[in-house]
């Protein structure tokens, strides 16, 4: 496909649709502006999927954004081989963690019937795309070193050219196909923001970080230990 379609027209279309769709969803169906929780249905596998996924992907995404917003500082930060190696290795570890997290989350949705029952087509599409995107990201990080440095001189000028409405895809059109696919899929994911559970990125309750804390008290009846003979045969009724 023509590069200008993929790397100029498509990004603009994706962002415009995401903004219009996002605003529309906010006013038309505000209560849905979240990620439908399935924690009540299954919470053990969820922990090992959701925590590694979010703690892996958020710093990696922020690093992508930081290079875009403050390229000068980013260049200075990476201007030393040791700092670069430390940051790249941290990024790779986080990438692996995000990858493991999304794989566990997808496996959970496939294998737990209750969670599968509440999974929509868009959920499948989104998680599959995220898996693909993170796999590509990890692959790129290992195969085409040093991504954080050349990103700064290829993708950043391209994205900034898009942002300033003077689009120029020249810096990226000669990059390997895996890198270009990573860029296009990135914009596909942006496009999907308002149409999927990804909307929760914008409704994350950040103010929880500074709201007053709450104390939760449990009222429980005290049960003195029964006689040994009756305990442990496993046939007892659950608590009412």
């Amino acid at each position, binding site marked *: 496909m023509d590069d200008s379609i993929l790397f100029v027209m498509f990004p603009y279309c994706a962002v415009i649709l995401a903004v219009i769709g996002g605003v529309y969803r906010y006013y038309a169906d505000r209560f849905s502006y979240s990620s439908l929780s399935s924690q009540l249905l299954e919470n053990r*596998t969820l922990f090992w999927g959701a925590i590694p996924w979010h703690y892996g992907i958020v710093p990696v995404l922020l690093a992508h954004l930081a290079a875009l917003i403050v390229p000068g500082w980013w260049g200075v930060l990476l201007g030393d081989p040791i700092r670069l190696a430390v940051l790249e290795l941290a990024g790779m570890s986080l990438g692996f963690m995000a990858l493991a997290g999304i794989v566990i989350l997808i496996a959970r949705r496939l294998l737990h019937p209750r969670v599968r*029952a509440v999974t929509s087509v868009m959920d499948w599409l989104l998680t599959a795309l995220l898996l693909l995107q993170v796999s590509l990201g990890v692959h790129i990080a290992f195969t085409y070193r040093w991504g954080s*440095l050349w990103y700064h001189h290829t993708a950043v000028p391209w994205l900034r050219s898009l942002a300033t409405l003077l689009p120029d895809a020249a810096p990226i059109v000669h990059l390997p196909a895996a890198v270009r696919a990573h860029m296009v899929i990135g914009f596909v994911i942006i496009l999907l923001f308002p149409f999927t559970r990804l909307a929760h990125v914008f409704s994350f309750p950040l103010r929880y970080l500074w709201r007053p804390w709450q104390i939760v008290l449990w009222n429980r009846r005290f049960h003195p230990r029964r006689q040994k003979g009756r305990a442990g045969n496993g046939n007892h009724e659950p608590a009412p």
Partner: protein
Amino acid sequence: MPSVLGLRRFQKDTDSTSAETGALPGAKERHMDRAGHALLFAVAMEIAVLCATICPLYALDEAASAGEGSQVDAVIAYLEERAPEQSAMPVAASTELARGDFRRGIKLFTGIISLQKGGAPCYACHTVSGIAPLGGGSLGPDLTGIYARFGATGLPPVLATLPFPTMQPIYRTRLLTSREQRDLVAFFSAVAGRTPVDCPSRMVVPAVAGFLLLFAVVGVVWRRRLRSVRRALVEEMTRQGGVDG
């Protein structure tokens, strides 16, 4: 209404689980079983996804950039052809080379000293044998043997113009200054005798170690997480030998 359907199916699933096993839904054994399956499945899925996406991308690379590849080959062939002709002027070349600072060349290559016009440091995409603990970039070719390939007179014009399709958009308006070119030539001539080595394996081990460490940290930090309200109550009751009345 997926959520309503989901709830119905969930209820059905819960009922059938209770009826079949006589145990509570979500009993521990079932979870252990699920976790094992999930792990196996996860590994299989990851391998499948990597094979299914990355292999065609490589094929696409080769097919789509056939023209570009031949363009690079043509540039290199031209430069290599010219190199011996130009070595007919050794005096000027060696004088130029003598002015280059090898140590400054290393710093320019690795980005410790920024390029004056703001171009990317060579190190972002290229490596030279033995320059840093984890080596340089691997997006572009290894430059350890570049001096041997192009020679003392063939290399400066390459550095002056950087006539490669991938590099042109980055350096077109940010070419190397003549001093930077001389320092880099001095650096490349100093490393010409080394054997090129690739070191991706050096990256994989610490990255996997970091990943395992992060997973362990997650387990430790959240060890006192609220695993379940109801399940904990039921387990406690069971341990205590049932419920009154």
